[in-house]
């Protein structure tokens, strides 16, 4: 791959590893949660609780998955 493209791929890979890491489902859940929060908020429905709930639940799911991988 010529240098400009290989650099772009390297930067994208770095950003993905840096931000998303080894469990993409957490990032996906946060993204979906933010979209749902925006929808609730636009419709004047109390929405601040959704992301904290997703954070707590997804941490448990991700930890269980990581623990099972280590066994």
């Amino acid at each position, binding site marked *: 791959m010529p240098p400009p493209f290989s650099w772009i791929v390297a930067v994208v890979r*770095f950003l993905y590893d*840096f*931000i*998303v*890491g080894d*469990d993409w489902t*957490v*990032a996906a859940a*946060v*993204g979906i949660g*933010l979209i749902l*929060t*925006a929808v609730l*908020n636009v419709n004047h429905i109390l*929405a*601040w609780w959704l*992301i*904290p709930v997703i*954070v*707590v639940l*997804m*941490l*448990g799911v*991700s*930890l269980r998955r*990581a*623990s099972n991988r280590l066994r």
Partner: protein
Amino acid sequence: MTGLWAVLITTFLASAVEAIEMVTIVVGVGATRGWRSTLIGAASGFGVLAVVVAILGAALSVVPIGPLRLVIGALLLVFGLQWFRKGIMRVAARGLAGIGGQDPHETAEWTGPGMDWTAWFLSFKGVVLEGLEVAIIVVSFGAGANQLGAAVIGGVGAIIVVGGIGLALHQTVRRIPRSLLQLIVGVLLTTFGTFWALEGLGVAWPGADASIPGLLVLYGATALFYISLERNRALGLRPAA
């Protein structure tokens, strides 16, 4: 016209609230990843802020902070959750061993050649986001009261005072084992990421900034719960109902 001291004190206190968040992130990242790249990141952030303030001046008060908060908050939230999860797993596996010394299984600081871009990026982001908020507070409050000079002194003074306190305590922070520190910083990044992302969406938090300690308590309790669960799992015991 608002009095000079009223402007000075108000901008100092308002900026201190934002500066505490900035210094918390910078000191946390610096103690975890090493100071050189973190301080260069913070200095880069201040450099960007100086350029932004010089270019925009009074117009800074109309920079849309909402989309900025949404993007940076979401990134901090996703990234913070990584450290949150890794911190829980490491503390559950190793406990608090290593207080007062270095964890024998890992180096506390970045030891690779050149710049630690992770530390640089986190520190840079924290300074730019919180610094923009300080700048907006100073410019809007100072311009509104026709006391821009006093407002600038209040804002810069808050950053110097809070930054000095943070640097004075960093040796204490360094004594905490890296795994625990990673958990603490993960909780902090997740907390501020949650708060900023939702503020960026226009969601009203109950109690506004006062909800930040509430989020910290929730995520702190979550960390303790999952650490105990992971320990029980590692010991092959059934977790308490």
